[in-house]
């Protein structure tokens, strides 16, 4: 997030972008590994419920999108020319867009992650759900079972 905000040009404008990618991203990656391991453990505690949870599915999709976004930015031509805009307080447009995407995606990941705990749309929950939501959650509706 620190990198994203720097890319957008909201904070740390006096700090070169390369300083953040080399000094902060290793911590981000390490923390990400911890989150993946603990997240997988939480998933294995209640795999079926989680698998059929619409927010879990949303979160997985968002995580993939965030990964693609980060990969596209780091592999792209703008990042390869980082030396040219490293110290510029405002980054090139592509970098700003990547930062903005990343911020929005991670906020949505936090949001959907928190919502996994609630059972509004669980297959077994008594709350009325639309056919669409049941489809997205992969629920087998009782009227389909013969």
């Amino acid at each position: 997030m620190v990198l994203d905000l720097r890319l957008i040009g909201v904070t740390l404008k006096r700090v070169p972008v390369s300083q953040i990618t080399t000094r902060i991203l290793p911590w981000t990656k390490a923390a990400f590994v911890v989150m993946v391991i603990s997240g997988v453990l939480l998933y294995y505690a209640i795999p079926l419920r989680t698998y059929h949870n619409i927010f879990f599915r949303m979160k997985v999709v968002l995580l993939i999108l965030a990964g693609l976004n980060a990969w596209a930015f780091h592999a792209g031509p703008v990042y390869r020319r980082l030396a040219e805009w490293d110290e510029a307080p405002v980054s090139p447009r592509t970098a700003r867009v990547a930062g903005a995407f990343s911020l929005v995606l991670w906020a949505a990941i936090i949001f959907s992650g928190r919502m996994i705990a609630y059972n509004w749309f669980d297959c077994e929950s008594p709350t009325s759900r639309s056919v669409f939501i049941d489809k997205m959650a992969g629920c087998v509706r009782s009227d389909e079972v013969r």
Partner: protein
Amino acid sequence: MLLPYFQRLESSSIGQAIRDSLWLFPTIEAFHLLALAVIGGAVLLVDFRLLGLGLKRQPLAVLAHDAQPFLIGSLLIMIASGVPLFLSEAIKCYYSFAFWTKMTALALTILFTFTVRRRVTLADEARVGPFWSRAVGLTSILLWSTVGWGGRWIGFS
């Protein structure tokens, strides 16, 4: 001693409305967590620097200055979202060890952050010295961790 007061808070209209709603509590909670992500970044960036990690080539005062609006802004959002969450389950909180731990730690953390830590981060680095810088960074991380731990544990009681 405080129980009647907590009972009154629980039956407040805001508390009532959040309890009656299916989605209000989770939504406010999600904003609480979004602000948590921001405050985590704003605090750790500077605390890591105090510990000699992260952006150690940048002047401490610059980092502290840039992190300040995010620290204060997210703290305000956390309090603004935390209060209604508390109101919806004030009596549960009254009996929760985690809640009292969190509130005590939070008071200490805010006090520490805006007195000692503030002076150290804005002071001339040469005057403070590495030992006290590290001590302040570590204290800040430990205090905030206690707040976070307490917050997560309120939900498990």
